[in-house]
C-alpha cells in the first residue's frame, strides 16, 4: 500500500503549526500516512501528533538534532523515507531547505511549494504556482518516490482526528558532513503577535511608513487592536524598518488570511504574489492609481498618517462595544 511520510517541523522541542499543513496535504492526497519527528526532547510534540490519524508517529530523538542543520537531518529523514511513495513537508524555511536535499538523496523527483493536489487520476497531480503566481502549472512526478513541499497558505491546518497513533523509534543516521558544518547561533526574533502564516488578519506596511518608528507608532496600534499579524513589503524590510521574516510576497511569505490590509503599499507583482488569495483585501494608499487598488475589495485613497489612526480608533470603539 503506498503511503505518505509527513516530516514534522519542531523547534526547541515544540511542534510547529506548519506541520499541520503537511498533514492536511496527506489527507487531501487520500493516502494513509505516517509522521516523522526529528529533533531533541520532542516527547510533547510526539504526543500531540498521535491524535491526527497517522499510522505511526516515527521519532528520531537525539542530541545532534537539537538545532536544524540540513546536512545533519537529511540522512536520517532519507533513511526513514525508504519504502514510502511520497515524502511531504510544509514549505516553511525548514521545509524549503530540507525537502530538496531529501529528494537528492533519494533520487526522487520534487514538487516544490505546491498549492494543491489532485488524487483523482490515479497518479497524484500537483498544482504549482510559477512566475510569482501568474501561472499555475499542473505537474506530476515520475519517480517511484516523490518529495513534496506544500504551501502553508493553501493547505489549511489539519485538526486532530482523535485516536492515538503508535510511536516507533527510528535510528539517527550518521551525517558524514556533520564535521564540516557547525551550528553557531540562532538569533530569534520573538513576538507576542500571531505568526504571519497563521493569522486570520494581516496588516502590512510599506516603504511609506518611512522608519521603524513609523511602523511602531502608526501601524502597530492598528495591528494590535485587530489582533493581527504584522506584515511588510520588501521595500520596508530592505530599509530595515522591520525584520525580514515579516516580508510578504513571492520571495517572502505567502499568506491568505480572512482580511489583509495593505497600508501604503504600491502593489508590485512580487508583493501581490504573497497576498492575493486573501479573502478580503483592503488597501489604503494616497495614490489613486496604485496597482494595489486593482485587486483590493475595498480601496481607500487617503494619507495613511490620517487614515490609519482613524481606523484604529474606530476598531477600538467597536471592540469596546463588544
Amino acid at each position: 500500500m503506498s503511503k505518505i511520510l509527513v516530516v514534522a517541523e519542531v523547534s526547541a522541542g515544540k511542534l510547529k503549526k506548519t506541520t499541520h499543513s503537511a498533514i492536511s496535504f496527506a489527507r487531501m492526497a487520500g493516502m494513509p500516512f505516517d509522521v516523522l519527528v526529528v529533533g531533541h526532547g520532542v516527547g510533547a510534540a510526539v504526543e500531540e501528533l498521535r491524535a491526527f490519524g497517522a499510522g505511526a508517529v516515527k521519532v528520531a530523538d537525539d542530541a545532534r538534532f537539537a538545532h536544524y542543520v540540513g546536512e545533519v537531518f537529511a540522512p536520517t529523514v532519507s533513511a526513514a523515507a525508504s519504502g514510502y511513495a511520497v515524502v511531504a513537508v510544509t514549505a516553511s524555511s525548514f521545509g524549503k531547505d530540507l525537502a530538496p536535499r531529501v529528494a537528492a538523496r533519494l533520487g526522487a523527483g520534487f514538487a516544490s511549494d505546491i498549492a494543491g493536489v489532485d488524487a483523482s487520476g490515479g497518479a497524484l497531480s500537483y498544482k504549482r504556482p510559477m512566475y510569482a503566481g501568474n501561472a499555475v502549472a499542473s505537474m506530476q512526478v515520475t519517480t517511484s518516490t516523490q518529495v513534496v513541499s506544500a504551501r502553508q497558505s493553501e493547505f489549511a491546518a489539519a485538526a486532530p482526528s482523535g485516536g492515538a497513533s503508535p510511536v516507533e523509534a527510528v535510528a539517527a543516521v550518521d551525517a558524514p558532513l556533520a564535521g564540516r558544518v557547525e551550528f553557531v547561533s540562532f538569533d530569534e526574533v520573538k513576538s507576542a503577535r500571531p505568526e504571519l502564516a497563521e493569522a486570520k488578519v494581516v496588516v502590512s506596511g510599506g516603504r511609506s511608513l518611512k522608519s521603524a518608528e513609523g511602523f511602531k507608532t502608526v501601524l502597530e496600534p492598528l495591528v494590535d487592536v485587530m489582533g493581527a499579524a504584522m506584515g511588510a513589503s520588501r521595500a520596508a524590510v530592505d530599509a530595515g524598518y522591520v525584520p525580514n521574516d515579516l516580508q510578504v510576497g513571492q520571495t517572502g511569505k505567502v499568506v491568505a488570511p480572512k482580511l489583509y490590509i495593505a497600508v501604503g503599499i504600491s502593489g508590485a507583482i512580487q508583493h501581490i504574489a504573497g497576498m492575493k488569495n486573501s479573502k478580503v483585501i483592503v488597501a489604503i494608499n494616497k495614490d489613486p492609481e496604485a496597482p494595489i487598488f486593482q485587486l483590493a475589495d475595498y480601496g481607500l485613497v487617503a494619507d495613511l498618517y490620517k487614515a490609519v489612526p482613524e481606523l484604529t480608533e474606530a476598531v477600538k470603539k467597536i471592540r469596546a462595544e463588544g
Partner: protein
Amino acid sequence: MKILVPLKRTADPDNANKIKIGAGGAKIETTGLEPKANPFDEYAVEASLRLLENGPTKARIAGDKLTIVSFGPKEAATNIRQALAMGGDDGLLFHADDESLDGDLVARALAKVVEQQKPDLVVLGKQAVDGDSNQVGQVLAELLQWPSATFAMSIELSADKKTVVVGREVDGGVIKLKLTLPAVITVDLRIVSSKSVVNHVTPATFAYPEGARFTPLPMIIKAKTKPIVEAPIASLGVDLALKSKYVSFALPPARKGGVKVKDVAELVQKLRTEAKVL
C-alpha cells in the same frame, strides 16, 4: 579562491503578470518580456565579488577568480556577459531549451561543472523567479556532499579562506552556520546590504552601496573580450531525463478589484456589514 556562480536567464520578473498561456495550456509564453538575469543570481555575483576584492579599491585578490555558468538558450550569453561586466572573469554556457531543464537536472549538470572547475565556493540565488522552485543549491550540495547554507543574508570569510560563517534568514530569525570550504551558498535579498559580506582585505569600516553594482562603460567594453565557452548540455555527460513533468499550465483565477470607499467610516461600515470581517 575560486567562486562559481550559476546564473539563469529569466523573463523580466517585474512584468511576470504579462505572461500568456499557449494554446490548450501547453506552454507559458513570455514573448515580449525582456529576458534578464534572475535577480538573485545578480546578488550572488555581487556577493561573490565582495568576497574576492578589496571593497574600496575593487582590486581583485591575487589568484582569485569568478566564473559564471548558465544553462539555457544561446541568447543567455548576453546575460553572462552582463555578469562579466560586473566583474566576473569568464563564462560557461551550456545550451539547453528551458523546457528541457528542471532544478534536478540543473543541479546534476552543475555537479559535473564543479568537478571540472573545482571552485572553493558555489554561490547561487535562493530561487529562480520564473519557476520559483528554490531547490538547485540544496540538491547540488547533497550531490557534491559539500556543506551548505541556504537563504544567506551575510557571509564572513575567514582570513585563512578555509571557512565561512553564513547568516541564514529563516522563519523566526537568523541562524548562523560555520562551513568548511568547499561549500555551497544560496543568497537571499539582503546579501547585498552594505555590510553583509566580509572578507579579510576590505576594511571593516567600508560600506558598499546597497544592491548589485552598476557596470560602468569601461567594464562593459572590457567584458566583451572575456571568454565565454559554449557547449551543448549533453557534453557534460548527464542523464537528460527529467524526474517530473508539466502536464499543463493555466492562468490563475483573476481577482477583480472591488470598490473605493470615501472615508474610514464607510470602510468600517463595509467591513462590518458587507464583508463581515470586523
